[in-house]
């Protein structure tokens, strides 16, 4: 048999025949044309390619327009303060705190709330989702409550959380937990379907028990879906943070944003938003890294 790996299957790019010079195609045409992505993959999956520079450009453009609009004086600083005002505000809050609490404490309490809800959701949601995927009994029992509460906005059941669990940490973490829980359960449940019937049959033909099939085939093949579900889930967690810190909070990034908005401190509001976005994004990058390490085979077989 030939021992060619994918990388050997390299095809030379087709040479253009010599012809009279023509005006080169426009930028749009060049950008939308199918292009080599990797060696051995001349016409790759549409959507391949590095977007780093474009992303940097889009971020740069955003800040430039922001700066321009405020510098010219088109919008009042009350509505959109200039970028520098945000930085100044950040430095001052970093040094002196906000409403008497150091910035890092706001940051850590919010991070603690989101991550403890996230970890709790993973610990309960992943096994439950896998069980729901594998057993009609579990699916029958748990599908209705999850599907019932899943589309309800957390703000709608926030009052109930407070009535039932008080104004302490419990109700806050529980609210975030609920918003993270549903996507994680559904992702794990969908992941169960990832294994090919041939993989399952192969395990059975070696005498595997049902449990071994789950342990050695179903669970590993569900990993890509599970990691995606975790990414989606924690996104929901950050989304719910501000709602969770709406009532009876004295600390936290959500609290900071909300109370600043009451005093029309727009720079603090925007700064809080940025801080939340940056932490969420950093964690997402970490998850993507984990994904590349844990399931490098994702979508490749």
């Amino acid at each position, binding site marked *: 048999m030939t021992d060619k790996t994918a990388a050997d299957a390299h095809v030379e790019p087709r040479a253009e025949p010599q012809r009279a010079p023509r005006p080169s195609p426009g930028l749009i045409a060049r950008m939308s044309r199918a292009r080599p992505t990797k060696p051995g993959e001349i016409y790759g999956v549409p959507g391949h390619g590095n977007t780093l520079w474009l992303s940097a450009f889009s971020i740069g453009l955003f800040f430039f327009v922001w700066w321009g609009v405020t510098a010219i004086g088109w919008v009042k600083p009350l509505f959109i303060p200039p970028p520098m005002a945000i930085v100044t505000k950040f430095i001052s809050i970093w040094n002196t705190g906000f409403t008497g609490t150091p910035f890092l404490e706001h940051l850590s309490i919010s991070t603690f709330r989101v991550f403890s809800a996230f970890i709790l959701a993973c610990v309960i949601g992943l096994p439950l989702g896998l069980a729901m995927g594998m057993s009609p009994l579990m699916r029958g029992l748990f599908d209705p409550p999850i599907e019932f509460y899943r589309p309800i906005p957390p703000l709608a059941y926030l009052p109930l959380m407070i009535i039932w669990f008080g104004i302490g940490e419990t109700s806050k973490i529980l609210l975030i937990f609920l918003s993270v829980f549903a996507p994680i359960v559904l992702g794990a449940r969908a992941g169960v379907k990832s294994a090919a019937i041939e993989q399952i049959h192969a395990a059975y033909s070696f*005498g595997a028990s049902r449990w071994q099939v789950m342990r050695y085939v179903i669970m*590993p093949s569900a990993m890509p879906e599970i990691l995606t579900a975790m990414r989606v889930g924690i996104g929901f967690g950050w989304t719910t943070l501000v709602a969770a810190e709406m009532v009876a909070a004295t600390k936290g990034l959500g609290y900071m944003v909300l109370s600043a908005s009451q005093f029309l401190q727009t720079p603090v509001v925007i700064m809080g938003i940025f801080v939340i976005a940056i932490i969420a994004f950093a964690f997402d990058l970490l998850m993507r890294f984990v994904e590349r390490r844990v399931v490098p*085979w994702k979508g490749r*077989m």
Partner: protein
Amino acid sequence: MGLTIENVSVVFPAANGRPPVSALSEINLQIDDREFVVALGASGCGKSTLLNLIAGFLAPTSGELTLNGRRVEGPGADRAVVFQKHALLPWLNVIDNVAFGLQIQGISRAKRYETANKFVGLLGLDGFQKSPVYMLSGGMQQRVGIARALTCDPDVLLMDEPLGALDALTREKAQELILNIWDNTHKSIFFITHSVEEALFMGTKLVVMSPRPGRITHVFDLPFSRQFLDGQSAREVKAAPEFIRLREDVLKIIFADEEAAA
């Protein structure tokens, strides 16, 4: 001893408004020890259904299968399956895929690597033990699948179009490889293919099947694989007049089936 299939029928019950399908009707087949049985037939004639029955993934609607005197009641390590594709575990590297069956059986890591390495070598995969399987070529992946099936020392190897996805050259080499392994390991093999030439070249017994209802219409005894193993080249065997004559006869039978169906 060997595998005995007696009066086996499979009917897939009606579902979603589709009528019931008589996938196999009154199949009788004997696969002796060290026999190489090849099944050939138009698409939908029940070849995979028959293989799934032997593997134990499916229970017959009526009739009985016995392997070495014991009734087949489910999958078991005495029968190993090589699938056409999608059956390797991409999160494991080559050696762990090959050793997968032994891992299921609770063999210690050192022991199972020892056995697996033997078959990795036999299938010409030395040096690729640590490679991820998703980076291998199709032919190499198929060899990993064969090595994996061999590690648990099954009595019967079941192969459902194992070479169907390979290019012509790789395929011919793989045919020779499988024949040599069959000769050295003394397994019985049940092998499904769509290629008449492959069927004639590899089998000691050819079973031609026909659809609606799926049944065995012809059985041929084949001398060609023996000729190859006795030293003739594959090309020589496949070009011999008797080979070509039989190939045309079998093709006629299959085309007649296709036309009757159309």
